[in-house]
């Protein structure tokens, strides 16, 4: 396995274009993510944020361009193969397995190898049990470990899904709207959790909540109409006239 040099990015999107029946969801998108980075991606509705994650995780195949993860192209790989390479994803609305208990959800995420025989023949190792136990504390669901995930509140489901994401120990975490529907206190805790994960992991967060993004204290990429509009710190981005324009709709649309 060729290991990329220290300077090369962990994730690179090079000239990625995606069109749905003629509508260009992503237009020649270029983006690089360094290992250990925490990156926030914002953009108005329809900017292509979720499509962008779909391309990385293999759900959508781009018409042009390439996606490199640790120096290897992800195109042509299935969702589960990409996940096994170390790309984890949390979905926009929480998607946990509601019929299973909190602990069983985490156990499915932590299990290796993720094959029928792997699940039938191998027990969870002590280290894996330890990780589940630790994560239950982190996401504050230890007292609910044996409750059905379907009985959790919306915020608890968000956290359970973040827990499932972290417990698989991916190299890259793609987090889509982690604080939608959370209380202020929960939002703060989530920001702290994601910040603590950066460094060991590479984290990409998509979010609408600007206070949350500010709290992440990190580099922000603004997407607009399938392209990167600008990049920089939250303060830089917020004062950029182009960003103000796309968010507040000042002036006329220049593109047809």
């Amino acid at each position, binding site marked *: 396995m060729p290991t990329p040099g220290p300077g090369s990015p962990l994730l690179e999107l090079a000239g990625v274009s995606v069109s749905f029946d003629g509508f260009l969801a992503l237009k020649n998108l270029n983006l690089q993510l360094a290992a250990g980075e925490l990156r926030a991606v914002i953009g108005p509705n329809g900017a292509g944020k979720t499509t962008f994650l779909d391309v990385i995780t293999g759900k959508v195949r781009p018409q042009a361009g390439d996606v490199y993860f640790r120096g290897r192209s992800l195109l042509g790989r299935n969702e*589960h193969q990409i996940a096994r390479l170390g790309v984890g994803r949390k979905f926009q609305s929480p*998607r946990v*397995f509601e019929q299973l208990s909190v602990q069983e959800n985490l156990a499915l995420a932590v299990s290796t190898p993720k094959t029928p025989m792997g699940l039938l023949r191998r027990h969870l190792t002590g280290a894996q049990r330890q990780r589940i136990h630790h994560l239950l504390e982190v996401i504050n669901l230890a007292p609910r470990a044996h409750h059905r995930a379907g009985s959790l509140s919306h915020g608890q489901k968000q956290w359970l899904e973040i827990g499932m994401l972290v417990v698989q120990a991916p190299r890259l975490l793609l987090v889509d709207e982690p604080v939608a529907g959370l209380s202020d206190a929960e939002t703060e805790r989530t920001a702290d959790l994601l910040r603590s994960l950066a460094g060991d992991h590479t984290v990409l967060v998509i979010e609408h909540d600007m206070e949350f993004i500010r709290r992440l204290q990190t580099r922000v990429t603004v997407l607009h109409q399938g392209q990167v509009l600008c990049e920089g710190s939250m303060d830089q981005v917020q004062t950029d006239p182009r960003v103000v324009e796309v968010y507040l709709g000042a002036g006329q649309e220049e593109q047809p």
Partner: protein
Amino acid sequence: MADTRSRWPPRWSQVLLWGMGLALVLALPSLVSPFRLNLLGRYLSLAIVALGIDLIWGYTGLLSLGQGIFFALGGYGAAMHLQLNCHSCSRAAGGLPEFFGLYGVQQLPWFWEPFHSPWFTLVAIWLAPALVAGLLGFLVFRNRIKGVYFSILTQAALLVFFNFFNGQQKLINGTNGLKTDLTRLLGMMVGSDAMQRNLFWLTALLALLTWLLCRRLVVGGRFGHALLAIRDDEARLRCLGYNPTPFKTMVFALAGGLAGISGALYTVQSGIVSPQFMAAPFSIEMVIWVAVGGRGTLWGAMAGALVINMAKSLVSEAWPQTWLFIQGGLFLLVVTTLQGGVVGWFQEGGPRRLLARLGWRTRLSTYPALELETGPEGED
């Protein structure tokens, strides 16, 4: 469902229950007539195919309308072995089973040869349907065909098999099927009362073993959780790093193998296997047994097969023609109100709700799930 492992040592009530069940099965042959016992044995074997359907439908969300294929394959395997050991039957030239003479077949078709061996037959009646199901399943699941398209495909496959078997007089006696009553197994006539009694016990034993196997090995652990995850959100499971195809293929093959065992037991107890086992209504009825008994409960599916079939024969004896109406009504009831089936209804507290609605018991003032809270830290 969080922990299905039973505690050890078992409680006395459990031991008592199992003991009574065992005693009932052992005593039944002397309690009921051979005719009734035979019917019970047949319906008990149908419980095994229902068990397989519960695995693929109740747990994995794959609604197969073609389990008759695998059921019939198991039946044909058993019948072919018995036909080759039919010492009392009249023989055509070359010692072949009788029907070959009608079509002028002189040489035993090649695929009959290994069925001389009882050991091969014992393996083939479950392995052959499992392999056919595995192959069919792999091709379908690999292409991400699911939902109603999967159901239609299985129904279409059933029709293909049905028509093929119907037309193959020279290979398997076509539409007439293969009879087993007058054949011999272990020195006994298969249709005799003594043999039927043994077959009843064998069926009861296999029904218990297959149930235990599915409960412990398949649905009790993380493999079963992965099946539920496939049923509820397959795309999510993919993003956790799971490839659902081998899981679905495996469980579909397992259900096929169970159908094969079921079909073999049904054949030797009903005395004949014919392409009618692959008739479309029969495979759909199998699904109804599971739906009425309770999807995703294993024993509910088995009980559904047993009880509905017993009711069918009792009702049909008393009022011919009425059964189809009752069956249709049952299905409508399950589709409209009892979505979890009878067992699911009990598990979800249905009796209590019904009593409350009738005014015999007060409604709970709080949502029932809240009573399970372990402490105040559950909610913020």
